[in-house]
């Protein structure tokens, strides 16, 4: 995978998360809605950064899809929180992959993003996991 491929994969993940948080926020109120809004803004800012990084490399950033299939229907506030956990966990996995594939400043950016995704997932979940982005156990 080239650096551009890695950035494109991360951008595709952020597009999906932005769409997902639109759904999440629509099913929440009060503090939880504000938390979804803050996450939405962070993912949009990251999308802009990735778009700029790709433009610097003369690559056309992958566009967002018009819609994304959700892992399961979102009806209640609890469904919305479960979707938010899922979005952040998927992103943590994408960005951990990016850490392994990137070098230098971009690797550091990817590592900080894994931390951000893990913290957001834990906030929705109310607890931590030992290896965010890698799965439940590491040999």
């Amino acid at each position, binding site marked *: *995978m080239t650096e551009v491929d890695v950035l494109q*994969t991360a951008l*595709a*993940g952020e597009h*999906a998360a932005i769409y997902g948080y639109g759904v999440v926020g629509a099913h929440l109120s009060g503090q939880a809605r504000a938390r979804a809004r803050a996450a939405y803004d962070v993912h949009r800012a990251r999308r802009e950064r990735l778009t700029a990084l790709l433009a610097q490399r003369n690559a056309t950033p992958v566009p967002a*899809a*018009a*819609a*994304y*299939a*959700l*892992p399961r229907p979102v009806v209640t506030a609890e469904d919305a929180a479960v979707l938010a956990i899922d979005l952040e966990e*998927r992103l*943590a*996995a*994408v*960005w*951990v*992959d990016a*850490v*392994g*594939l990137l070098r*230098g400043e971009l*690797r*550091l950016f*990817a*590592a*900080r993003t*894994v*931390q*951000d*995704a*893990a*913290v957001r997932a*834990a*906030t929705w979940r109310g*607890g*931590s*996991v*030992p*290896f*965010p*982005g*890698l799965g439940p*156990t*590491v040999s």
Partner: protein
Amino acid sequence: MKDAGLSRRWVLTAGGLLAASACTRGGRPTPAPRLDPDVAIRRAAAADVSALLALYAVNSQAHPGLASRLAPLAAETTAHLAAVRPPAATSTATPATPTATGSASVSSPPPAPTVTEALTTLAAAERQAAARRAAQLTAASPALARLLAAVGASEATHAMLLSERA
């Protein structure tokens, strides 16, 4: 439908990485362990994580009311130590008990005087640990960098959970 495509891409990415790390491991003709820069990075990370564990131990003991809150975080930190520690063949002959490893060089820290200070101290230590993990992974092999990124993310999560009001 688009989501299925995206998921597939993620799966493909993970598969590609497995292949990549397999190549790295297979292609390296069993070098002398001390030539592998990962070993030094693993040692440094293991020393950090051992110090964190010691901090959890003294504060759990001094503040039994915190024990149930700290136990899951300490358990994850024990898992971090097992994962980052250099392979047995390259480390000195130390007992395999996670808490014992590295404790020879880590003097036991004093517990914080109050529950609030214990939480503040641990949160600060986890935050610093997460920052060190990010610094350490920049020079690591791809496989170790992934591991340190995950450990650092868990440490950042611990810092957040310790900063929350009970």
